[in-house]
């Protein structure tokens, strides 16, 4: 037992500290929503149904940083925003909310915006990587040229850690 305890101790020390504030915030939001639910139920229903694509992507996204989920989620939310405003303008009732959800064009806008987010996730990272790597290659070329210049100016010993007196003596 003692051995097991001592084995676990370093592992625990090595593990990154968990974000306690994140969990607390999440629970606070849930409590807040639960308390506000009787007053904003239509809005809540519209949002929960409208951001379904984001929830689905959140489940299938294996990236720990969840960058793709953030992209799709942002666009999904942007697509949903006009309808939430409409709901608030027309009156926050379950009837209006269901009416909005039953309109196919509205779904086209909501899902289309999420699709744009998806498109960004597919297109932008490779484009950015190509750009970055091209820059790196260009920089690499310049650096290698600089190395050659240093060698031609100071001799091959500039690349070594040989003591100066030995270089001077030609050893």
């Amino acid at each position, binding site marked *: 037992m003692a051995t097991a305890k001592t084995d676990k101790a370093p592992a625990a020390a090595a593990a990154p500290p968990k974000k306690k504030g994140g969990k607390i915030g999440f629970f606070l939001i849930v409590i807040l929503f639960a308390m506000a639910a009787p007053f904003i139920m239509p809005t809540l229903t519209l949002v929960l149904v409208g951001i379904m694509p984001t929830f689905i992507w959140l489940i299938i996204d294996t990236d720990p940083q969840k960058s793709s989920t953030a992209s799709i989620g942002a666009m999904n939310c*942007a*697509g949903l925003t*006009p309808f939430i405003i409409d709901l608030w*303008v027309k009156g926050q009732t379950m009837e209006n909310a269901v009416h909005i959800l039953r309109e196919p064009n509205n779904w086209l806008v909501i899902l289309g915006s999420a699709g744009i987010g998806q498109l960004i996730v597919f297109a*932008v990272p490779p484009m*950015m*990587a190509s750009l970055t790597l091209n820059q790196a290659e260009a920089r690499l070329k310049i650096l290698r040229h600089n190395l050659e210049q240093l060698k031609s*100016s*100071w001799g091959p*010993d500039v690349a070594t850690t040989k003591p100066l007196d030995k270089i001077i003596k030609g050893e």
Partner: protein
Amino acid sequence: MAFPDPKTSPAGGIAFGNRAEILPGSPLPDLNSVGGAAYGAHIKGDAASDVMAILCNAGVMPRVDAVTSMRSVNHPSILRLLDSGVVHWPQDDTHYYAFAFQRPTAPRMVQHIDQPMLSMSEDAINHYFVFPLIGALVELARTGMVHNAIRPTNIFWRMGSATAPQLGECMSASAGFGQPALFEPIERAMSQPRGRGVGSHLDDCYALGVTIAMLVLGQNPLQGLDDEAIVNMKIDKGTFNALIGNRRISASHVELFRGLLSDDARQRWSPTDLEQWTHGRRLTPKNSDVGRRAARHIDFEGKEYWQVRPLAAAMAANVAAAAQMVESGGLDKWIRRALGDDDRAAALEEVKTDLKEEGGKITNYEDQLVTRCCIALDPQGPIRYRGLSLMPAGIADMLVDASLTGNHLQALSEIISNKLVTLWVEMQKDAKVELVPLAQQYERMSGIIEKSSLGNGVERVIYELNDGLPCLSPFLRAQYVMTAKNLLPALERVATSGNRPHEPMDRHIAAFLAVRDRRSDGAFSALSSQDGTKRASALLTLYSGLQNRYGPDALPGIGQWLSPLLEPLVHRFLGKALRDKLQNLLRETATRGDLTALSRLVDDPNRIEQDQQQFRAARMLYLNIMKEIAHLENKLAHRDAVIRNTGKPMAASLSSYLAIVFVMLAILRAIWQGISGSLMG
């Protein structure tokens, strides 16, 4: 810069010294000297001057250190030294030392010492020959000049004439070199001709005594005998008896010869005594124990010896047997019992004990033992060591000869390092105080000779002991360099001759500069280094200092000679551009012959430090670039990571910005609809 040809006058004379000119086309074979050939000469601005020049080309070192004394000698019975200096001899393109003397007014007294002489009356001899020469000796003693070359063949006198005789020159060869053993006191006669050194005025008195004796007797009384036989006869009988014997001569001459030919220098007449004799004062020579005979002989190598002097000479000639005799105690017994000389026996015992107490491994033990015993037996005699026989004053000249020929150099070094001169001085009785400076000088030399670094060793001892000696470096011998000032011009001539060695430096040049230019050991320690850069740097510093002090301003030959040696100094610089620039400047400055500028160019410590600092900075930069390259290569090798770490966050950011824009548009649309609905309503 090309050096001018030797100064040649319209009359064909070659200038030397301050104002003398030698005439190569006017040889005077009758006046040739031991040290070299005689030529006609004249003094500039004095066309009527009757001058002869002696060109010292016989391979013997002239007595340059005695020039000042000789110049002050002014007596009608001594050939006057008018001028001296180095002369460039065009026939063999070599520099020699030359002396300009007053030309003798008469021929040589005799051509060789065995030549019969004119019979003259006692008064004539005294009046026309002896008195003037006594005056000459008094003048020599006044000026401190020892002649060491008084003999009938070096006296210019028409026998029987009323004109005063003239002593010939004594400067062209080392003291005593050309002097036959007949005219030297026993101890000097037992030395090798080059190992006699400068003697004393008493030696001149002795030589004058022998010369007068020959004139009085009308011939050489020891005619036909070789030097060894003459010395043995002098030891055996004493000089007076060997020369005069039972021959009939006047009482005043007997007295003169007893005074002059005394074998004990302490009893011999001095120039002052001679002067008193000319004024009629009578001096009685005292008895001496120089030729003391033992009550019974000692057998050594099949011969019987009755006196210590011949025994010492025989012991030196047969070291192994002599060492055995000493070790067995036979010699000690003979000295105590047969010779009855307890002092000498004690001295012998002392040298034996001292040698054994030195401890450690004594090199050439038997040689040293016998030499020390010989000194104890015959203190006035020469130092006899490993085939050498020399007076302490002759070591200096022997070293020069040894350095030129390569013979006996080791033995001479051992004489100095084993402090045999100190022992010799300690063994002297009456003259000990006068010889203390000599002992001190050789004590100092024994320290110098042990050091092997450049600027020390036996070479330095040679220059320390020979004041007027030119630099004996093999490639400077033909240049006759006598002062540090003349070294660079001579090296420049060697450099331009095309026959130059690898480096313009050797042990002789270093020793010469150490002594003549009084340079400290530190100036030469770097020259002994195995590190080529250190050696080249030290060489340049040394020569640039000489050029700075003595000139000439341009030494292109030496510059180009040094140039390849200085290449390693340029290679100390690490920056290639700086190195290339310095190499170009080095060639240019070397061609100009400015050694000081060369030194500043390649040996500037600020420039070296700056170059090394820049190299360190370049090395740091190289390291940083290498790190960045590694980082970039790693990035290129992991495209997925770039997408994940850079692309996806970028996509998220882009989506977020777009979403914000869309939300803002939706809000604006709602506001617009609200405003337009109100207006419609």
